[in-house]
């Protein structure tokens, strides 16, 4: 396993401004995230977990400081460059799946490929593979409303990995699922990490979920502390 740094954060400061109130979430954060890691982030509500994921994924920007993806600085990219960055390198997985209700599972997974100019055959191959990985090949023509929560989340994972991103950002991916289904989803993520060497950052409130990761960090008052796995 390589230990090169996938993400480097330097002197990051993030302040949310709501009306006249300034809310300091990160003061001066420095950290590295290595390629191939599977990090679980835990922490109290409002501590800034989602904010961190948004900045890493290029949908939010730090107030000051620098974020590097491999060697490239991403915090000062234009909106268009960030869009392209997300399309190429990042896969997102949300708590509420956020699938397109009018598209089948297959078409939902296909969405990110619309942004590439792969041949039709390549696209089909990639979609089939992604659906196979999440073990949902038999449901490809179903619409989201015809799927269970766990199945919908698996479609969302397939969508996140179909374009072969370097990093998966998951915000409470099992927050809406029962224990058993949650374990299935976490198993899929673990598999993606171990077999396909995908770097994963997962925000969760569930200590059991954190157990699937290689490293659990606890976010509190703008600082990440390594948490001992019990």
């Amino acid at each position, binding site marked *: 396993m390589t230990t090169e740094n996938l993400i480097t954060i330097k002197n990051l400061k993030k302040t949310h401004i709501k009306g006249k109130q300034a809310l300091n979430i990160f003061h001066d954060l420095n950290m590295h995230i290595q390629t191939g890691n599977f990090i679980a982030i835990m922490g109290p509500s409002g501590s800034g977990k989602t904010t961190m994921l*948004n900045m890493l*994924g290029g*949908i*939010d920007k730090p107030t000051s400081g620098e974020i590097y993806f491999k060697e490239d600085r991403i915090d000062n990219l234009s*909106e*268009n460059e960030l*869009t*392209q960055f*997300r*399309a*190429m390198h*990042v896969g*997102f997985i*949300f708590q*509420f799946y*956020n699938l*397109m*209700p*009018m*598209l089948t599972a297959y*078409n939902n997974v*296909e*969405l*990110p490929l*619309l*942004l590439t100019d792969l041949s039709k055959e390549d696209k089909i191959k990639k979609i089939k593979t992604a659906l196979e990985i999440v073990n949902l090949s038999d449901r490809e023509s179903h619409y989201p409303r015809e799927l269970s929560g766990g199945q919908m989340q698996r479609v969302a994972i397939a*969508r996140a990995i179909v374009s072969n991103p370097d990093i998966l950002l998951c915000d409470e991916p099992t927050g809406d699922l029962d224990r058993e289904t949650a374990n299935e989803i976490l198993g899929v993520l673990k598999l993606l990490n171990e077999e396909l060497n995908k770097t994963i950052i997962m925000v969760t409130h569930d200590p059991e979920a954190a157990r699937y990761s290689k490293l659990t960090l606890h976010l509190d008052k703008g600082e990440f502390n390594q948490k001992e796995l019990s």
Partner: protein
Amino acid sequence: MTIFYLVKKNLLSHKIRSFLLVLCIFVAFIVYGVLKSFEQAMHSGIELSGTNRLVTVNRINFTQPLPYAYYNRVANIEGIKNVTFAKWFGGYYQEPKNFLTTFAVEPSSWLNVFKEFIVKPEEKRAFLKDKKGVLVGRNIANKHHWSIGDNVPISSNIYSNKKGGHTWDFTVRAIYDGEKEQTDTNQVIIHYEYFNLSKTFGKDFIGWLVVLTKDANLNEVIAKRIDSLFNNSAYETRTATESAFNKAFIEQIGNISLIIQSVVSVAFLTILMVVGNTMYLAVGERTKELAVLKTIGFNNRLIFNMIMSESLLLTVAGGIPAIICAYGIINALNLVVGGFLPGLLMPMNVVFTSILWMILLSVLTGIFPAYNAVKLNIITALHKNQ
């Protein structure tokens, strides 16, 4: 799957709503297509007028007569290529409601001036030879099932003949076709000579003169020459281009263009409001989906194009069938009112302007929602509860 597929899926995911919008657009474009064709048919008399044709009428009013002698006097004026005259016969076939646009004319000069009447040479010869012959338009021949050689009685609601009746007997000698599709083929042309000899009053008077000038640039000068020739006589004249004459006649009916413009504007304003607002709302409902697409990496141009295509697709889905239907309606109406309103067709320019309007309307209805979608903030949009 393509972006277009996404657009289609978005529209189909709210079938009733999309259907209603398409219906609304459909109706507006039917109104547009039919009314605009009507307007142009009303004005086709102006557009089809010969550029170097002048009409000379009695200065008092065109229903007042002119002496027959004027025909020969005008013919001698310099710069004139041809001159002919006509007299309104007030014709009808069998019953007054089957009215016929009937003119008593000097046939050979008439056909020289109205070159848009296409007559077969042998039929023309037969018509010129037979004083009791009649030349009828294709439309009217079809309508009354007249063919060459048929004896047709035509009555007048103005004149009576020496036998004491209002009906003259004619033989169909020729049938003319129009040079253009809009050319009026509802006219009936009879020999002035026959009519003049057999009527009981108003002899040796004609209705108006039609003058063909050598050059359209001479129109004004020649009109003045004609009118000054008869100045201070008992029958003063007023000469104008055929198109000015036809325009004045349309204006007598009323400001039809204004009425049509108003109705069309109202129809378009309605769709602008209904479709615009609905699109705005529909895109608002999809905030979260759009945010996800942006997260996945759809750039602003794609998002913008996607929303604009939706409104374009809606407009086209309503507009194109509407124009086709309007075409059908106009053709059906042509059978009913073609006699009163010759040239009732759907002109190509109506089709073109409809398409321009479709584009304009789709831009107007799509631009604000599309702009909103582009400006949408991913973080706040994702934060929203479903």
